[in-house]
């Protein structure tokens, strides 16, 4: 068995096509989903999975220790870092009000942020371009925020 084996070649080719399909669906999701956070769903999962499939195809096709090591590294770091960037972007998006809060079926984060003393800035208070001011979150004045709610 080696990378030149026709069966391995066939499997690698199928993995490549599947991987490309998932990357494509990630792109389509990015375009079609309604707000930042739902778009991040598309940007994390199918994108990472598509990349993992393409990488395994490469690993099978090249069939060497060097390429396998590289492929494992790339896949591992992708799985480790994609959630971190998704979290940073979605957290910012949430606090800037860049999501369909009115269509959400449940929002327990809003309840807890209100408990912690966060408020919505009044309309036309801050310059924010076309950001929806009513959904933006503003940190409470420091004395109003109890210490135990931090962190």
């Amino acid at each position, binding site marked *: 068995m080696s990378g030149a084996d026709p069966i391995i070649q066939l499997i690698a080719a199928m993995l490549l096509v599947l991987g490309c*399909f*998932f990357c494509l*669906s*990630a792109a*389509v*999701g990015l375009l*079609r*989903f*309604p707000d930042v*956070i*739902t778009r*991040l*769903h*598309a940007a*994390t*999962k*199918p994108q*990472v*999975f*598509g990349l*993992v499939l393409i990488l395994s195809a490469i690993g099978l096709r090249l069939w060497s*220790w*060097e*390429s396998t*090591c*590289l492929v*494992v*590294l790339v896949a591992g770091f992708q*799985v*480790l870092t*994609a*959630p*971190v960037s*998704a*979290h940073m972007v*979605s*957290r910012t998006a*949430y606090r800037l009000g860049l*999501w*369909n809060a009115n*269509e*959400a*079926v*449940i*929002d*327990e*984060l*809003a*309840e*807890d942020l209100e408990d912690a003393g966060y408020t919505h800035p009044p309309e036309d208070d801050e310059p924010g371009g076309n950001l929806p001011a009513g959904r933006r979150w503003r940190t409470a004045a420091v004395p109003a925020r109890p*210490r*135990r*709610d*931090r*962190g």
Partner: protein
Amino acid sequence: MMSEEKRTPGEVMHRHRTRRRMAWRHQGVNVAFLTLVWVMLNGNAWPLTVVTGLVLALLVMWVFPLPAIQWQGRPRPLGLLMLVGRLLFDLAVASFRLSVTAFSRNPRIRSGMVRIPLGSQGDLYQVGTASILTIVPGSVVVDARRKTRTLYLHVLDMEPEEAQDVVEEARRAEMRILRAFASNAEIRDAAQAHDEEGVR
């Protein structure tokens, strides 16, 4: 973000020294790991590569020092295997569902933001759980609190009465992380905390 009570200067110094000692013990693991990454990147284990990797690892540790993490657990090979296998499976399911949604004629998206109280204590477990929850079907971690060990998940498609199911699912993910990295006592404590939360 951590709030610390008042301590005498002696206590502070002692804590500082202990932390530094622990830090150096962990640095060894970090240097070994960074060297391994370098060797894997190069695809060979010639002595020159290993030495270069060591030098680079020490340089990285010196330029970007990280605080030591508190970790009482140990790596468990079987749990780790289960974790990685389940992660790949979840990733496949999540990608399939999302591509169906992305290509559907009229994507129906009813999202929600759900609070997940974790049962475990420890930054490492919280970060690990948050990471795999972003990978598992239908959720992205939007916010996290360290003091109360809470995560906030954005769920792509849910009904209002499904919030409890989301919490259960997240706790199963947390238990998978614990079974891969935590000590027996920590696993027991977390399971107990989940049971108590469930009764409430």
